């Protein structure tokens, strides 16, 4: 168990390092330069070169990389080329917005998906068919399109929720919750569908296992066979997919934040990409990776608790 945790932890650190390295190399593959970005169209080649020199852009790559890494470990992600503000400070405000959306969406997807998937597997027949087909369609729908339709139905037609905008938790907790509801719902439709399919497949596989027959041969009550033994067996793949799902939903929030005008990480990423604000881009990637890695680490622990083969390894 301890070895397992240590291995997962090492993986997590490795992943963050890889994220830093990859995004760092990416921005250095650009055909423009930070000086040109900072000075805008008015910059002459000489001034751009001077600016680049000042920013350390011309230093050897490994020097820049370790400089950046050093800063990162102290919580310094540099300053924005566009507005000169602290990137770390800006992202610190934004991370909670995105993290809560992705987290709520993952949890809700898990609940809805498992309920539907298990129902489909247990009930079978027409109900099962309906659920699996519905899930197949739901996971194919573009999240931004679903989001707009939800806005149209729930905000415009029904007037239940605000269409867009963000209310800070400190200002108005109820408003905060209401402002996140539509984005979370939009993400849950696709995410829940994927979990439903995984849960359905896992549950069907579980119910076909030999040990389920042993339980039935022992006269074990059917609810216990299904919801204690089969569900436990099916839960391992579901948790694994939930982890991947969180990564995907975290990424998907870029689009959803754009649609719902939420001041999250994704919006920062979009703005940084559009303006080639290189330090901000690297910052967004690195922070996003850290959040994703932490959540996945937690899910790895859940898997270890669920699966004795992992625990006793």
């Amino acid at each position, binding site marked *: 168990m301890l070895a397992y945790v240590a291995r997962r932890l090492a993986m997590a650190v490795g992943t963050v390092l890889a994220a830093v390295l990859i995004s760092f190399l990416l921005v250095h593959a*650009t055909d423009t330069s930070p000086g040109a970005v900072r000075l805008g169209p008015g910059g002459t080649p000489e001034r751009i070169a001077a600016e680049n020199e000042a920013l350390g852009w011309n230093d050897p790559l490994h020097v820049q990389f370790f400089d950046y890494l050093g800063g990162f470990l102290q919580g310094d992600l540099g300053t924005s080329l566009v507005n000169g503000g602290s990137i770390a400070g800006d992202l610190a405000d934004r991370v909670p917005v995105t993290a809560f959306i992705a987290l709520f969406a993952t949890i809700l997807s898990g609940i809805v998906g498992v309920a539907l998937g298990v129902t489909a597997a247990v009930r079978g027949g027409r109900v099962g068919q309906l659920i699996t087909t519905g899930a197949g369609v739901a996971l194919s729908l573009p999240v931004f399109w679903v989001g707009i339709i939800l806005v149209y139905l729930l905000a415009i037609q029904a007037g239940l929720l605000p269409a867009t905008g963000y209310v800070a938790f400190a200002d108005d907790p109820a408003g905060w919750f209401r402002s996140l509801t539509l984005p979370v719902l939009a993400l849950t439709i696709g995410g829940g569908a994927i979990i439903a399919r995984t849960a359905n497949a896992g549950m069907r596989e579980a119910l076909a296992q030999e040990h389920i027959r042993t339980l039935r041969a022992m006269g*074990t009550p059917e609810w216990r066979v299904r919801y204690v033994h089969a569900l436990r067996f099916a839960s391992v793949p579901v948790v694994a997919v939930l982890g991947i799902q969180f990564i995907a939903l975290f990424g998907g929030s870029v689009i959803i934040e754009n649609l719902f005008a939420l001041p999250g990480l994704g919006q920062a990423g979009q703005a940084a990409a559009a303006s080639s604000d290189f330090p901000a881009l690297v910052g967004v990637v690195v922070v996003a990776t850290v959040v994703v890695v932490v959540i996945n680490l937690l899910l790895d622990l859940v898997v270890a608790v669920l699966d004795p083969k992992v625990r006793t390894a």
Partner: protein
Amino acid sequence: MSALPLDAAANTDLDAGRPGRPGRPGRRLPYFLRRPGGVFGATWLAFVVLASLTAPWWVPYGVAEQDLSNRLALPSADHWLGTDPLGRDLLSRIFSAGAEPLLAAGITVLVAFGIGLTMALIAAERGPRVERVSSRLAEVLLALPSTILLLAVIGAIGVRIFIVMAVLGVMISAGVYRVMLGVAKSVRQRLYVDAARVNGLSSLRVNLVHVLPSMGTVVAVQAAQLYGIGLLIVAGLAFLGFGPAEPQPSWGFMIQDASSYVFSNPWLLVPTGVVLALTVVAANELADAIASRGSVARTTVRRRRSPARVGATGSADPRPADPGAVLDVRDLHISVDDGPALVTGVSFALQPGRVLGLVGESGCGKTMTARSLMGLLPDGVSVSGGSIRWQGRELVGVSEKDLSAVRGRDIAMISQEPMVALDPMFSVAYQLTQPIRRFRGVGRGEARQIAAQLLRQVGIVDGERVLKSYPHQLSGGMAQRVCIALALTGEPRLLIADEPTTALDVTVQAEILSLLRALVRDTGLSVVIVSHDLGVVADICDDVAVMYAGTVVEDGTAAAVLDEPAHPYTQALLAANPHVADGEPVPTRLASIDGTVPPPGEWPTGCRFASRCLFAQEQCTQRFPSVPAHGSGSVLCTRVEELSRADVTWMSAPTTGPAGHETAPATAQPAPTVGVSR
């Protein structure tokens, strides 16, 4: 944006080629085009691709052509799908925009498979050391938030969508690698791969000829799913403004545009959104249809089986009811619902404290018979006639609820694969104490003591350690002992053992058989044991029923049946056994039986063994009743007296010549697919 994980639901259905016969290529529609989802998926994808690629030649309007008097119009004869805020024709714009996402998503798929599949094949071939490195790498790549990384790519190199999507392909290749590695490894474990390697096939040829084709289904499924994901991502990027610049249309940006008009003109959302959604749905439906191969639409539901025609007959059995029997099976018929019979007219009775063996080859209905005793037939198979009386109580046709009151308490079962018969997720202690508490109404602590005591009873010395273990930590013999202890938790009167030692080593088998014998002796338990091994039957059984093609051909006490077999099939089975008794010479050739057991549905009238029997004559093709033999037993052979008078046995009969035993040509004779026994 849909999640990146390659859908686990459509997982590794490897058995491409196993089910069904390989059809003649080109003659019939591929299997996935015989499902509605597949037809829809393939048709729509073909239509969209074709319409988009040929758009320049057929769209009614230019992409930038404005009809300012007709802005935000609903569908009309002029504009079939309506117009946008600048009065541009939506139909023309949608299909002019199609080529880019359709191609870009294709690039993602190609790159992802080019890297992921290749790496998977290499890792599967090179073994654990290479695999460890590449899997770690894949894990890191998988944990990166790919959409946000794509933004970094765009920030660095600008909106060069084909390159961006190729980078996405690199990131997704980790997911492809993971799925394909599992598939490739399991294909490589197949012996035909080893056989090809021994033949000296190069590693590339082994992969191309033997590994890849068997992965075809999974590759197709994943590729179709990934294509849908790629489409969603291209559209999502365009939605964020990272697409072709205006006035060039893109699906994503058209939806972004529509979102500003959702208050006043919701229709604008519909055409583009529906085309995009349908295209992704089509890709996924196609994937599902491809994945459907092999996974026969099986319902996991335990259907209430239709009540059997209870006691409809019984007259076919000449023997009188046995008053002392705990278990009395009469004229039992089991069949596939709406299908062939698997077991017909099986009757036997079991006295308390005795062991009955059901013996025969695979496909003879032994396992089905044993499972029917507890009402645990597989879905789609049910008892279609006859009666099973347990201590005078009829078990055929009773409700699932009443049956489950019998299971575990009166009748318990152990199965042939002890390693998978225990729940891998729970400790042995939990799995034992749970039924103990239910059956005996005791508390947690006492249940644990009883569990420890049961483990001692089944010969486990270090019970405490075993209680704390999980099934994967036990050896096969140990697991079978735990299974027996589990079966004993309800203090049953009858134990059904389905090939309990087949999966075990011979020395372990001897230990388990000794244990069962001790249990019978000490507790007065009755046992029905299913086995293909006549030695096992000789070792443990008091009575034996030899089954062939779904019916009992000979029964009686084990000593009588095995020492003086009367039915030619029993004689043949004994003669085919290479285990000679001490002092007897090893034969230079074994007596064998031509052909194979006919599968259910192809049983002849009259004697079902006739086609393989050395003594078959005209009279054997007629129906005939069984005749009493071995005291309390019977033999189902119309020539039995004749043969015994002439003192002819299978061993003494002239055998067929060498190497030409299987005279029956290899006519399509697929192994029976319904039987579960092995």
